[in-house]
């Protein structure tokens, strides 16, 4: 059983952080960043995030897992058909990776290979179903597995998505398909988080709130223009703009979000993008 599933099961407030594999074969920076992480339950490893090609999330997660760091493997439907997805999931299990974050993935149009053919053979609901099937000992063709994986599958949600009712029907489907936890898109608004958590209550599935460290107003504007599902409110952009030390202000904004999460959610997922050393401050 993974620490993440154990702690969420015990009602402990969990903290996960995020690390991106390098664009290339040099793992030293990623491994050094992980070294800096303290007080973390598990490290999310992103999968070609923002549709930018990088070293495989499975390879880095396997390396971390072998070094004794618990990981959450992110896996997207964008780049793989159902055979590749099953194959990678079995591969992950062989390295002792249990925690999964199963995603549809940003469209390849946003990344550095916009001419590629996006796959989306499965959607995130179907991917969750498939992981459940593997855990029950059969692949999607109904064939039995020689050695059965144990996973703790999670799913993503954007609590700010509108229409809310439509977004939430997919959350319910993900729960039916075996999502054991949710990790949210970056949260910037207390009321939006509260509305979402109220709707989540009857489903009884733990929610880890996404908290993004925004280091400047420039970055906030970039996110608003380029990252699907992320909208930094104008009030925060202005706070960053007028701050003397915009990184310190970003840390303060992240601290506020962590406080909301402590009040309403079962954990927090920190996206610090190279500022891992600020994590203790964000959590303090």
């Amino acid at each position: 059983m993974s620490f993440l599933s154990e702690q969420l099961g015990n009602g402990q407030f969990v903290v996960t952080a995020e690390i991106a594999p390098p664009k290339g074969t040099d793992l030293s920076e990623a491994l050094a960043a992980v070294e800096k992480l303290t007080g973390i339950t598990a490290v999310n490893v992103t999968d070609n995030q923002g549709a930018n090609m990088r070293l495989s999330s499975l390879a880095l997660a396997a390396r971390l897992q072998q070094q004794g760091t618990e990981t959450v493997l992110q896996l997207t439907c964008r780049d793989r058909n159902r055979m590749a997805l099953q194959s990678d999931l079995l591969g992950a299990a062989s390295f002792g990776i249990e925690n999964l974050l199963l995603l549809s993935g940003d469209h390849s149009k946003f990344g550095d290979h916009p001419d590629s053919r996006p796959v989306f053979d499965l959607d995130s609901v179907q991917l969750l179903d498939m992981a459940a099937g593997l855990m029950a000992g059969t692949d999607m063709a109904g064939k039995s597995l020689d050695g059965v994986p144990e996973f703790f599958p999670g799913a993503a949600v954007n609590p700010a998505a509108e229409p809310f009712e439509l977004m939430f029907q997919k959350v319910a489907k993900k729960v039916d398909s075996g999502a054991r936890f949710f990790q949210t898109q970056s949260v910037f608004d207390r009321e939006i988080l509260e509305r979402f958590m109220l709707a989540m209550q009857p489903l009884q599935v733990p929610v880890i709130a996404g908290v993004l460290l925004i280091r400047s107003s420039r970055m906030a504007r970039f996110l608003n223009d380029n990252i699907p599902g992320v909208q930094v409110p104008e009030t925060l952009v202005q706070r960053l703009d007028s701050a003397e030390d915009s990184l310190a202000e970003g840390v303060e904004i992240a601290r506020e979000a962590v406080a909301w999460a402590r009040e309403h959610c079962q954990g927090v997922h920190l996206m610090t993008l190279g500022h891992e050393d600020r994590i203790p401050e964000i959590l303090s």
Partner: protein
Amino acid sequence: MIISELKPYEELQQALADFDKLFIVGCAACATACKSGGEDEVFKFQEWLNEQGKDATGSVIIDEACHIARAARDLRHHKAAVQDADALVVLACGSGIQSISSNVDKQVVGGLNSMFLGNVRRFGQYEEMCSLCGDCILNETAGICPVTTCAKGLLNGPCGGMADGHCEVDAEIECAWSLIFERLKSQQRQGVFARRVPPKNWSRRFQPGRYRLKDGES
């Protein structure tokens, strides 16, 4: 209909570099409606060839260039002009181009790019709504195809990139799932939201497609 557009002239210049005399084929169906291979375009193409210092030996607009036998018949009617040409230029969709190439020994140069099966919003404005995937769930999606009109072809609802009911790939476009949701709601039915849709059976999209009416059906 099949939506097509003329290839860039630079590309055509290269494709036609080795030929001096060309026979031009257009299509009276889709390529005419798309203003890519009708009478006007065949005429314009002939003028362009002349500007390039090339000759047109003749031309024909086939009723439906995709009709293999009809294409053969129409080409026979222009036998001398076809014989006289170094190659044929076809202003029709990829299907039409291949009807022609299967009927002549000469080299065939396609002049158009074929883009999608399009619905007509109004003349000159075409939208892709069906991708001919062979496994239709329109009855559950209030007649809106998510395989085609969702940028990711998702089957169980919108992705995390949906913003205010619009698509992450193009904010101008409404999210297919938002449209499906609204329409089902107005019809007071759950439709596709009543179940988890299993992975799509892509083997129903026969590739290469072949279909033949059974005896007695025709």
